C-alpha cells in the first residue's frame, strides 16, 4: 500500500490560484497554512486580506477572512483582535499596500504592540496593477512608472521594513526570509512558525518580510526571476532575524 507523504495543508482550499507561473505568493500561502495547521489554529484564525495580488486570500485559505481597504489591514486586524483577543489574527500584505499607502497603519499597529502577525510579501513592484514602482523597488530598477530606472535622488531609496520595524519597542519579532531555494524555504517556514508562536503565546507583534519573485512584472521567465531574488534582492534586503525578544 502506498503511503502518502505530501498533502495539501488543511488550512488551504483545494483550488487553483490565480498567481502567475513562478510567483512566490503560492509558496508563502502554503508556508502560512502549514504553520496554522501545525499549531492547530485553522478553526481559530481570522485572516485579513489586503489589496493587490493578495486580495484573494479568502479564495485560497480555508479560514474566515476580512478584506481590508488598501494599506489598512493592520488597522482592521487591530479592531478584530481587540474585539476577539481569543482569536489568531494575521494580515497578508504586499509592498505597495504595506510600505506606501499603509505605512501609517503598519507603523502604529507595530508600535502599539498589537498581538497580530503580519506577513509582508516584498516583490519590489505593484503586481496586480501591472508592475509600477513600489516603495521597495530597487535603485535603478525599471518599472512601468520608473521607465528610466528608480532614481533615488527623486524617488528615495527602498524601505527596509524588517529593519525599520525592529526599532520599535512594540515589535516582538521581525525577520526577513526568501523563497528562492529549498534552504531558504525551510528557513522561511521556521520563521513563519516563530511569528505565529509569538501570537499564540501572546508575546506581541510579529513581522515576516518574504522576498518574492514577480516574473510577469519583472519581464522574466520564472527561473530568471528566481535568480534575480538571489542576485539582486537578497544583497539589498539581507535575510535574517532583526528582532527576537523571546529568543525563539
Amino acid at each position: 500500500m502506498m503511503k502518502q507523504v505530501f498533502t495539501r495543508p488543511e488550512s488551504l482550499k483545494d483550488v487553483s490560484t490565480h498567481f502567475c507561473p513562478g510567483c512566490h505568493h503560492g509558496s508563502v500561502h502554503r508556508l502560512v497554512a502549514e504553520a496554522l495547521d501545525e499549531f492547530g489554529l485553522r478553526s481559530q484564525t481570522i485572516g485579513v486580506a489586503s489589496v493587490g495580488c493578495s486580495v484573494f486570500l479568502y479564495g485560497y485559505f480555508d479560514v474566515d477572512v476580512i478584506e481590508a481597504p488598501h494599506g489598512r489591514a493592520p488597522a482592521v486586524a487591530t479592531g478584530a483582535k481587540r474585539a476577539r483577543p481569543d482569536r489568531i489574527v494575521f494580515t497578508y500584505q504586499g509592498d505597495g499596500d504595506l510600505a506606501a499607502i499603509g505605512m501609517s497603519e503598519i507603523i502604529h499597529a507595530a508600535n502599539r504592540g498589537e498581538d497580530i502577525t503580519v506577513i509582508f510579501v516584498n516583490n519590489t513592484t505593484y503586481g496586480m496593477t501591472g508592475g509600477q514602482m513600489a516603495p521597495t523597488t530597487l535603485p535603478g530598477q525599471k518599472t512601468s512608472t520608473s521607465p528610466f530606472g528608480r532614481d533615488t535622488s527623486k524617488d528615495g531609496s527602498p524601505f527596509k521594513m524588517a529593519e525599520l520595524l525592529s526599532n520599535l519597542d512594540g515589535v516582538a519579532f521581525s525577520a526577513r526570509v526568501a523563497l528562492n531555494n529549498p534552504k531558504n524555504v525551510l528557513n522561511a517556514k521556521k520563521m513563519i512558525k516563530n511569528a505565529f508562536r509569538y501570537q499564540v503565546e501572546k508575546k506581541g507583534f510579529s513581522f515576516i518580510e518574504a522576498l518574492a519573485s514577480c516574473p510577469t512584472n519583472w519581464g522574466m521567465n520564472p527561473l530568471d526571476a528566481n535568480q534575480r531574488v538571489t542576485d539582486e534582492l537578497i544583497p539589498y534586503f539581507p535575510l535574517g532575524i532583526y528582532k527576537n525578544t523571546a529568543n525563539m
Partner: protein
Amino acid sequence: MPTATLEKIFVKGNEAVAMAALEAGCRCYFGYPITPQSDIPEYLSRELPGLGGEFIQAESEIGAINMLLGASATGARAMTSSSGPGISLKQEGISYMAGSELPGVIVDIMRAGPGLGGIDASQADYFQATKGGGHGGYRIIVLAPASVQEMYDLTMLAFDLSDIYRMPAMVLADSVIGQMKESVTPNPRPQVVLPSKEWVVRGRADGEPQNVVKSLYLGDGEMEAFHWKMQSRYQELADKECRWEEVCTSDAELIVTAFGSTSRIAKTAIAMAREAGMKVGLMRPITLFPFPRKAYAALSVRCKLFLDIELSTGQMVDDVRLSVARDADVIFYGRPPGAGSLPTPEELFEQIRKNYRACA
C-alpha cells in the same frame, strides 16, 4: 459608568453620545482628537477600560474607521466619532463598510468647512452624510438629534438600526448640540429583537462555512446584484424607519422645516410668529436618510408654503423640494457656517413674517 436609571442628569451632548454607546453595549471605540467632538473619546477612554472594553486613540481617522471595520466584522458593537476634516478621511472606510454590509456607528459633530474651516456649528455636511460621502454609490443611515436627550436616544437607535439593516449609521449633530449641556433622562437600552450575526468572522470551526467580509465583486452580475439588494434595503428603511417631528402643522399656512440645532432656533421663531397671529408650524426630519418624503408630501397636500432653514447655503432643501407636492413653494433661508453666522430667533422670525405676508 452611569447605568441606566431614570434619574435626570445634566450633561453635554457629546457625553450623552458616549453614555448611550455604553448603554447600547458598545465596548469598542476608536477615535482621533478633533474639536468639537473630543469629549467623546475623552469620556470613553475613562470608562471603557473598567468595563472590559477597548479604547484606542488611533493614528488617524483612517486608522480609526478601519479598526471599527475590523471590530464590527467580528460582530462587536463598535463606534467612532469625528468632525468635518476627520469625517472626510473616514469616507474610504465607510464606503468599504457599506460595500461589506457592515454595521457600525459613526458620530459626526459638524464644524464649519471646507478645509480646516472653523469649529463653529455647521450643517454643511448634510450632502456628505446623506448622499454617500465616499465612492461607489451607497447610502448610510443618518440620524439628526436636536437636543442632548436625542443625542442619547438616537445614538442607541443608531446601533439598533445599523445591526438590523447591516449598514453603517451616522449620528449627525453639530458643535452646538455637541457642546451644550441639558438635562437628560438616561433611558435604558431599547428592547429590540436583533437579527443574529451569522455572517461574522469568528474562526471557521470544522463543519461550519467559511465567512468572508468583503466588498470585491468581480463575477458577472455580482456587483449589480449587490446594488439591487441594497436598493431594496434602502426602500425598506424608507418604508419602516422614517422619523420626524411636527409642531403646530395642522392649521399652518407656512411650515418651517429645519433639522438639528437650527430647528431649535426655528421653534423659538415659530412661537413668536404664533404670538403675532401667524399660523406657522415646524416640520423637523429626525432621520435624514431615510428622508421622510411621504410626511412632506402629506403636509404639502394642504399647506403650500415651506420655509427651509439651514446653517449652510442650502443642502437639505433639495430633498424638501423633491418631497413636497408640485404646487407647493419651498423658500430657502440659510447662512454659510462660521463664527458669527448662527441665526437669531428674531432673524428667523423676520424671514417667517416676510414670507408669510407674501403668501397672504
